[in-house]
């Protein structure tokens, strides 16, 4: 792969839930190392895109290429066939996801939450997995809670552990789905700080769905505004937030500011 090829290439995908068409012929590309913020009203399809990339939802039509390979299709003798579980497992190694509600494993301590997947899916020996986990927990400021159970942590702490857990598999692409929406206001900042540091220090490709416009502005190289399953407007954070061109983007940002979110 040359450095200039997109790491994610979405080609006219569509997705419906029942009769509700969430995504309708959406196409977009993401370059390696890019930090993307996806913003837009609820139901605009931005979370669905992340869930599709993580293979938590299937697409009804279209194609997705990750790192030069088809995500939902396999190439066999020049033909594209639907991907089987083995293919998906291989593709998922490139992608990690952090959820709105953390989704930690409540019966495992912080350390085990982080080491479980590397040990099971990559065969990493326990000692190596724990060493790496400590480095990651150090980075998210949770090293001193390694032996705690998730129930003993605050929301912000849980989310920082969840970030370390996803990073432990060293994915090329990280997906963050409204990772601060479920947090008490005073805990939002600690999670954002971790993510700012992550964005500054790594060359991982990151996609962020958020309602925190100020955070999206600081975090992203490029902002995509979604409405009704389509990209209405995209550009550099300053362009989108200071000088939006589309009426719908302007209306959305005005509403967000009126609701008390900072930009």
């Amino acid at each position, binding site marked *: 792969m040359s450095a200039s090829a997109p790491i994610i290439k979405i080609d006219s995908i569509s997705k419906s839930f029942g009769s509700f068409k969430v995504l309708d012929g959406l196409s977009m590309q993401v370059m390696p190392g890019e930090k993307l913020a996806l913003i837009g009203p609820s139901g605009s399809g931005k979370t669905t895109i992340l869930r599709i990339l*993580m*293979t*938590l939802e299937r697409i009804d039509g279209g194609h997705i290429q990750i790192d030069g390979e088809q995500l939902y299709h396999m190439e066999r003798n020049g033909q594209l066939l639907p991907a089987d*579980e083995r293919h998906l*497992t291989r593709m*998922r*190694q490139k992608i*990690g*996801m952090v*959820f709105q*509600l953390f*989704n*930690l*494993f*409540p*019966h495992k301590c912080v350390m085990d939450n982080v080491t*479980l*997947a590397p040990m*099971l*899916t990559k065969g990493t020996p326990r000692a190596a997995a724990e060493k790496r986990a400590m480095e990651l927990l150090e980075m998210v400021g949770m090293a001193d809670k390694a032996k705690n*159970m*998730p*129930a*003993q942590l605050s929301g912000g702490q849980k989310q920082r552990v969840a970030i370390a*857990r*996803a990073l432990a*598999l060293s994915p090329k692409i990280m997906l963050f789905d409204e990772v601060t929406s479920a947090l008490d206001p005073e805990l939002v900042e600690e999670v954002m700080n971790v993510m700012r540091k992550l964005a500054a220090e790594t060359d991982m490709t990151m996609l962020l769905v958020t309602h925190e416009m100020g955070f999206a502005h600081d975090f992203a190289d490029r902002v995509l505004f979604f409405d009704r399953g389509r990209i209405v407007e995209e550009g550099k954070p300053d362009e989108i937030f200071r000088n939006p061109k589309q009426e719908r983007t302007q209306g959305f940002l005005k509403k967000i500011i009126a609701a008390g979110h900072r930009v």
Partner: protein
Amino acid sequence: MTQWSGYFGLILQGALVTIELTLMGSVLALIMAFLAGMGRVSRFFALRWLATAYIEFFRGTSIFVQLFWAYFVLPFIGISLTPLQAGVLALGLNVGAYAAEVVRGAIQSIGREQYEACTALNLGRWQGMRHIILPQALLVMLPTFGNNAIELLKATAVVSLISLTDLTFQAQVVRAQTGNTLVPFTTILIIYFILALLISWGVRSLERRMARGLDGVRA
């Protein structure tokens, strides 16, 4: 005056048989419960069908008939079982069918977000089941498993009908020999009750131990 001490010895021997039956039956029931319960949520149609057929059949027919089948009918197709084997088989398969639904319900009670975390961390179906879903589901199953085990204990009384010398059988022997009904049947009533209490207590302490440091698994 009746020599009660000898008769109590007889009843205690019966208690041992009842305990043995309960333990062995519970082990078989547990195995069947996990096989059939997980079969019910399998993605393979054949496994789902097989598990459903087993559960419906053994819940839908009487344990009494199942026991007679195991002991008196199986020999006709060349399978001769001892009374103990027949008793364990009938009790284990019968209670296992009920407990299988407990396993299925508990697995399905674990939130979708836990399954999604498994996918996001690229765990295989079986890895996710074994390390994430089942350990949490087990805590949900335990109280009902306690119920099932007590049901099994009480159901062991039917084996006296195939001449297995359990509590109930011995009480009948004592009654026949002494002509006294009150004493033997009150004694075994109390023994059954104590055994059931022991099961309750054991399951509850197991639950407490497993629930330590854990939240979100049980509402």
